[in-house]
């Protein structure tokens, strides 16, 4: 017979406010097997944990139930407490009377009754718990970083600094990401390239970092400490080992009308290209959609001019398999498509641009060599209207419900830079709210208004109408003066909302990492574990987890690296002991379990059995490899003879829970 202790937590007033904790402790004290029952203000506090330890020792408890917050919160804490008092840490069950009781019910009587049922359910389960011991598995000392923007670069550099091998996978031909496209950065007005490209070079020169540019993650198998990843290296049609990045091929290529995606299609490049001057790796890539040789088999100019003989029109995608201990997701973002916002005439007029396009238009390496000109007629714009929150904070289906966070600041930056360089240009900014929390951010915004004379107008733009003379008539309202405004603008800049990169969703499926409804990766705990995914061994870096600016991204990237280093530094990982096991006497060797196991953890062995008539017989029975089993329990249900069971969530335990609820 088990000797069970029950510990009911008040959690201040979080639980005690709606649940009569004394009544719960009293009622649960009467349950069969319970020899000790008490309540305390904060069970997770040191005093609370000592109370549990003392009770385990004094009453010789063989199992404990803590009625408190979610097991996702403090199960690990109380398991450690039990272990410290000499009780097997898997003899602990949590009754979730906070998230799933006190926080959702207002009536004390109802909540108390439910808490008692949840408590007795946990007691019924713990009475059937058996001590479990975690086995240890080795950790592969290598990390994978997916995404080569500033987030991925910083994470890779920090992990490599600690002495571990890192593979950096980037889907574009070069690392650098969005930051490489940006002109200046707020609030210091540093040139983005000047602070980013040295980091890119560091990555390339670091012996521990291996860059897989123009590559994608094809499949992910395994689990924390032992991920098995296939990387697809897309065909560049250029031999990476031979290409010197001289660029002669890009000059000689006759297909000059290929949209330059690095400049967001604002100008053209050749079909064979190096995205930008500081690209890492600096290797040419052939755009198969535009290359005449690859499309029609006619041309071959690049191959003729290449002194290194690097062009290879027959190059195929390559697949690389590699093991990793940890994976960092740094897939970043994109501005949303603006097709739903026809009122701003983005698709009608080339002079209506997004903010990222404006970055390219103002960049020295951009289409106009750094001079701000209207895309339509290459004239200097004298009036520019910025529209904030295009698609952000939009609860209709058109846009995104969240604040994209960076737009207020980069618009202040754009406005300031334009006023600084072209003082004759009037700049208007239509905004819903100006949000500038952050070090030196509000000071920066105020400088734009006070020192640079940018006209901030609280209100939304209703419509942008292209005029026959090339002007853009902007109609909006000023909410502070309650006036309707008409502005004749030369350019309109839209602060488009940002959204997670489209590759993030299939990647999340591969990694079995969870996402929120906006396709941002969810963190293990929104406050206390912000860079870890709930899936062990998967870490989050940068905007893939939520909108952030560069300093925040870099901070989070380093934090993710620190977590990865902590994981890789461990000689071995304790594996989950809640694995499946088969009763050989019941197993009939039917292979049902083997077929449903997603991990291939089940194999069959021939075993000798003594028969009732004292003869022996060899039978084929299932055998589970606990190091590979992840404990999902699919096999336990597939087993027709009831031989397969799952430790920690056994058939008997779950039945007992059902009984306790329905009692």
């Amino acid at each position, binding site marked *: 017979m088990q000797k069970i202790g029950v510990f009911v937590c008040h959690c201040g007033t979080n639980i005690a406010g709606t649940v009569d904790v004394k009544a719960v402790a009293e009622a649960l004290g009467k349950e069969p097997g319970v020899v000790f029952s008490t309540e305390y203000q904060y069970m997770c506090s040191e005093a609370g944990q000592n109370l549990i330890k003392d009770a385990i020792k004094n009453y010789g408890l063989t199992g404990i139930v803590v009625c408190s917050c*979610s*097991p*996702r919160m403090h199960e690990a804490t109380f398991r450690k407490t039990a272990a410290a008092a000499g009780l097997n840490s898997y003899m602990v069950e949590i009754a979730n009377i906070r*998230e799933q009781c006190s926080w*959702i019910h*207002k009536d004390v009587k109802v909540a108390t009754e439910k808490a008692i049922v949840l408590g007795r359910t946990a007691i019924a389960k713990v009475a059937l718990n058996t001590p479990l011991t975690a086995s240890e598995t080795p950790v592969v000392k290598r990390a994978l970083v997916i995404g080569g923007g500033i987030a991925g670069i910083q994470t890779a550099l920090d992990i490599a600094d600690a002495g571990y091998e890192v593979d950096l996978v980037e889907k574009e031909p070069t690392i650098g990401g969005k930051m490489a496209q940006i002109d200046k950065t707020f609030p210091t007005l540093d040139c983005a390239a000047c602070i980013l490209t040295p980091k890119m070079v560091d990555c390339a020169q670091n012996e521990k970092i291996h860059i897989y540019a123009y590559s994608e993650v094809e499949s992910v198998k395994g689990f924390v400490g032992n991920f098995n990843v296939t990387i697809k290296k897309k065909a560049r049609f250029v031999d990476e080992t031979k290409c010197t990045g001289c660029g002669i091929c890009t000059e000689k290529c006759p297909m000059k009308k290929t949209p330059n995606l690095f400049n967001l299609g604002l100008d053209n490049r050749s079909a064979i290209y190096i995205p930008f001057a500081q690209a890492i790796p600096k290797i040419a890539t052939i755009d198969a959609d535009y290359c005449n040789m690859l499309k029609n088999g006619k041309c071959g100019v690049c191959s003729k001019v290449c002194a290194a003989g690097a062009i290879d029109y027959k190059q195929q995608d390559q697949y690389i398999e590699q093991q990793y201990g940890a994976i960092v997701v740094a897939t970043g973002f994109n501005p949303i498509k603006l097709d739903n916002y026809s009122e701003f005439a983005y698709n009608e007029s080339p002079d209506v641009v997004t903010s990222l396009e404006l970055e390219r238009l103002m960049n020295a390496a951009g289409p106009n060599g750094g001079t701000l000109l209207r895309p339509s007629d290459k004239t200097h714009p004298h009036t520019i209207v910025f529209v904030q929150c295009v698609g952000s904070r939009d609860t209709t289906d058109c846009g995104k419900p969240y604040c994209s966070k960076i737009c207020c600041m980069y618009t202040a930056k754009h406005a300031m830079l334009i006023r600084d360089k072209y003082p004759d240009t009037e700049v208007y900014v239509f905004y819903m709210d100006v949000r500038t929390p952050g070090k030196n951010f509000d000071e920066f915004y105020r400088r734009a208004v006070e020192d640079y004379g940018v006209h901030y107008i609280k209100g939304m733009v209703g419509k942008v109408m292209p005029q026959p003379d090339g002007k853009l008539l902007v109609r909006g309202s000023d909410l502070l003066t309650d006036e309707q405004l008409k502005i004749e603008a030369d350019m309109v800049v839209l602060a488009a909302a940002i959204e997670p990169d489209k590759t993030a969703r299939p990647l999340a499926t591969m990694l079995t990492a*969870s996402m929120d409804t906006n396709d941002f990766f*969810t963190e293990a705990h929104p406050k206390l574990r912000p860079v870890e995914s709930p899936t062990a061994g998967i870490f989050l870096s940068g905007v893939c987890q939520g909108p952030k600016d560069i300093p925040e991204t870099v901070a989070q990237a380093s934090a993710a690296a620190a977590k990865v280093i902590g994981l890789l530094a461990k000689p071995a990982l304790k594996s989950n002991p809640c694995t499946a096991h088969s009763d050989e006497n019941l197993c009939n060797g039917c292979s049902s379990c083997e077929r449903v196991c997603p991990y291939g953890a089940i194999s069959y062995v021939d075993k000798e059995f003594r028969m009732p008539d004292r003869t022996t017989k060899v039978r084929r029975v299932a055998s589970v490899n606990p190091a590979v089993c992840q404990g999902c329990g*699919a096999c336990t249900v597939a087993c027709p003879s009831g031989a397969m069971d799952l430790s920690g969530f056994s058939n008997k335990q779950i039945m007992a829970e*059902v009984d306790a609820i329905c009692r």
Partner: protein
Amino acid sequence: MSMNEFKPKIVAFCCNWCSYAGADLAGTNRLNYPADVKIIRVPCSCRVNPMFILRAFQRGADGVILCGCHPGDCHYTTGNYYARRRMTMLFSMLDYLGIEKERTRVEWVSAAEGAKFAAVMNDFVKTVTELGENKRLEDLRCKK
């Protein structure tokens, strides 16, 4: 027993990775749903043996709901597909035995869908309450 007093017994099986976390999020966001719902945590929706559901009805449950990760998002890759197939068969058999289809349900609730969890539970409790007490499979020998 009049309809107003009837409080159904609802057993909810929730997978640890998505739906249980979704239920926690409903709590964190203080989203109300009836106390009649009692949650059993399982590692994956595929851990739920049809026997558990039969047992619940035998012991007097009025409704059983199984919640798991959205198709394609299972922590164990394929578990929710197994669960979906098994439950489709079980529920049609239960319907044949006289346990109305409305008393059983499979729902996909992600860790981020606290609001969906509360909405699903509110709706399910309402449906089961309207159906009234379940006596079809109840094993009266189990009653005290």
